[in-house]
C-alpha cells in the first residue's frame, strides 16, 4: 500500500471517528431528555396546574397556553404568509423591488427571537396597551413565524410544475384563480408539511414570549369558555406562560423542591411534541399527496 492510500485510509478513519463522536453527542442528548424526563410524565403532570412552592405541580395550564398561542399565531400568520408567498410566486418580477422584498424577509428570519420579542413588547404590550397577554404573545409569534412560513409555502408553490399554471391560464382563468384553485391545492402536501414544521418551531419558542405573553400562568376556569371573561381559557387578554417559558422560568428562579423533575418532564414533553410535529409533517404530507393522486 503506498503513502497516499495510507493517508486516505487514515483520514477516512478520522472522519468516521468524528461522525461517531457526533452521533454519541446526539444520542446522549435525546437519550438524556427522554430517560430523565419520561418517568416524570403522568396524566396528573400533564393536566394539573403548576405549584410555586410545593412539589407535585403539573404543567396543564402551560401546555394549554402553548397550544392556544400556537393555534392563534398560525391562524393570523397563515393568510399573511400565503398572500406573501403568492405574490412572490406569481407577481414578483425580477427587479429591485423583489430583491428588496426577499432581503427583508431574510432579515426578519435571521433576527434573534429576543429582538422580535422586544419589538412585540414595545408595540403590543406597551404601545397598544395589550399588556402581557395571549394576544400580545400571538402577534409576536406571528412576526417570528412569518418569514419561515412564507418561505416554506413559496417553496411548495414553486415545486408545482409550470404546466399546471399554463393549464389554468389557457382556460381563460386569471393568475390569481389559477394559483388559489389549482397551484395551492396541488402543493397542499408541501404546504401542510411546512405549516407543521413551523408549528414545532413556534411551539418551542420562549425568548419571543417572556416579555409579551408573560411569565405567569394564573389559574384558569376550564368550565368557562366565554373569551370575554378574564379567567376563561380563551380570554385573549390574560397573561399566559407557555411550556417553553415555564422551563426557562423555573430553572432561572424556581424554588419548588421538585424543580429538576418538573423541568425534565417539561423538556421531555416539549421534545416529544416537536417529534410528533416532525413525524406528522412527513406522514400527513404523504397521505394528502396519496389521496390526491389516487382513488378518492
Amino acid at each position, binding site marked *: 500500500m503506498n503513502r497516499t492510500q495510507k493517508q486516505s485510509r487514515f483520514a477516512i478513519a478520522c472522519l468516521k471517528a468524528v461522525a461517531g463522536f457526533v452521533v454519541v453527542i446526539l444520542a446522549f442528548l435525546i437519550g438524556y431528555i427522554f430517560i430523565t424526563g419520561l418517568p416524570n410524565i403522568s396524566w396528573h403532570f400533564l393536566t394539573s396546574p403548576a405549584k410555586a412552592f410545593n412539589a407535585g405541580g403539573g404543567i396543564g395550564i402551560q401546555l394549554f397556553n402553548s397550544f392556544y398561542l400556537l393555534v392563534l399565531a398560525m391562524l393570523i400568520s397563515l393568510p399573511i404568509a400565503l398572500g406573501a408567498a403568492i405574490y412572490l410566486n406569481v407577481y414578483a418580477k425580477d427587479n429591485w423591488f423583489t430583491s428588496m422584498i426577499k432581503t427583508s424577509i431574510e432579515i426578519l428570519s435571521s433576527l434573534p427571537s429576543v429582538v422580535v420579542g422586544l419589538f412585540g413588547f414595545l408595540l403590543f404590550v406597551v404601545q397598544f396597551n395589550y399588556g402581557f397577554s395571549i394576544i400580545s404573545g400571538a402577534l409576536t409569534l406571528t412576526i417570528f413565524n412569518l418569514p419561515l412560513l412564507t418561505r416554506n409555502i413559496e417553496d411548495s408553490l414553486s415545486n408545482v410544475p409550470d*404546466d399546471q399554471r*399554463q393549464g389554468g391560464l*389557457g382556460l*381563460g382563468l386569471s393568475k390569481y384563480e389559477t394559483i388559489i384553485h389549482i397551484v395551492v391545492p*396541488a402543493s397542499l402536501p408541501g404546504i401542510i408539511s411546512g405549516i407543521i414544521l413551523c408549528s414545532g418551531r413556534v411551539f418551542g419558542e420562549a425568548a419571543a414570549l417572556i416579555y409579551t405573553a408573560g411569565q405567569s400562568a394564573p389559574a384558569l376556569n376550564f368550565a368557562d369558555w366565554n373569551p370575554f371573561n378574564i379567567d376563561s381559557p380563551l380570554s385573549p387578554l390574560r397573561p399566559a406562560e407557555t411550556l417553553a417559558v415555564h422551563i426557562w422560568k423555573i430553572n432561572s428562579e424556581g424554588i419548588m423542591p421538585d424543580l429538576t423533575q418538573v423541568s425534565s418532564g417539561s423538556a421531555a414533553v416539549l421534545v416529544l411534541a416537536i417529534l410528533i410535529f416532525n413525524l406528522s409533517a412527513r406522514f400527513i404530507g404523504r397521505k394528502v399527496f396519496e389521496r390526491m*393522486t389516487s382513488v378518492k
Partner: protein
Amino acid sequence: MQNTTELNNKPKRFIYDFNPEETDITMQTKDLEIYYGKTLAMHNADLKFQKNTITALIGPSGSGKSTFLRALNRMNDGVATVKGEILYQGVNINQPKIDVYEVRRRIGMVFQRPNPFAKSIYDNVTFALQRRGIHDKKTLDRVVETTLKQAAVWDQVKDSLNKSALSLSGGQAQRVCIARALAVRPDVLLLDEPASALDPVSTQQLEATLRELKKDYTIIIVTHNMQQAARLSDYTVFFNMGEAIEYNKTRKVFTRPKVQMTDDYVSGNFG
C-alpha cells in the same frame, strides 16, 4: 439567414387555395413581431387560418412555431413582447383594451405534456365553468358527458369521474385536457405538440379525435412530427429561424414545396 432574405423577395410563399374574401377566416396575423427581451424571436408570418380546418405548424426546434402559436391566445403576455395585429374574427385581439381572459376562453389551448389538475376528472372538466359561476349540477353533468365524448375518452372514464385525474394514463389525461378546453366552448383550439408525450396508439387515437373535432372547431396544431402533419392537417405552415417560410395545402407542402428550404426539411435533408 442569407437564404431567408432571398426568399422574401419571392412573392408566392403563402399560397391560399381559398378566396379570403368569401371564406370564413377565423384567425389572421399581420406584421407580427415577437421579442424575448430585445431579441427578435419571430417575424414575417402574415398567415390566415380558415374556419373548420386543421392547420399544422411544422419546423425544427427553435423555429418560432410554438412562440407563434402561444401568441394567438396571448399566452405570451408577460413572457414576450408581441407587436402587430392578431385578428380573431376580424377583431384585433393584440391590444391592451382587450380582455385577455375572454380571448383565451374563445381560443383554447392544449399543451405539450398532459397537465391535468390535481382534482377529480369531473372537476378538471367543469373547473373553468364553476369559476365562471356555473354551478347547476345538470348543466355541468351534461358538459362533462358531451366534452368527454367529443374527446373520445367518455367510455374509459365514465365510471370513475370522481377519481383523481392524476391517476390517468398519458393518453387519457391528454384527452381529458382536451375535454377541459372544450368545456368553455371555444371557437379555436390551439395544440402545442399534444402527442409528443404519448405512445403511438394514443397518438393515433388523438389524431382521430382531432379529425372529428374539426367539424366544430378551427384547429391549429404545432408538431415536429411530419408524418402527423401530413396525416392530419388540411394546411401546413413551415417555420424556420423565426419566420413562416411557406404556407400551402398540406399535400402540396409535402409533395411539391415551392421553397427549397421546405423541400430540404420535409425530405429530411435538413441542416
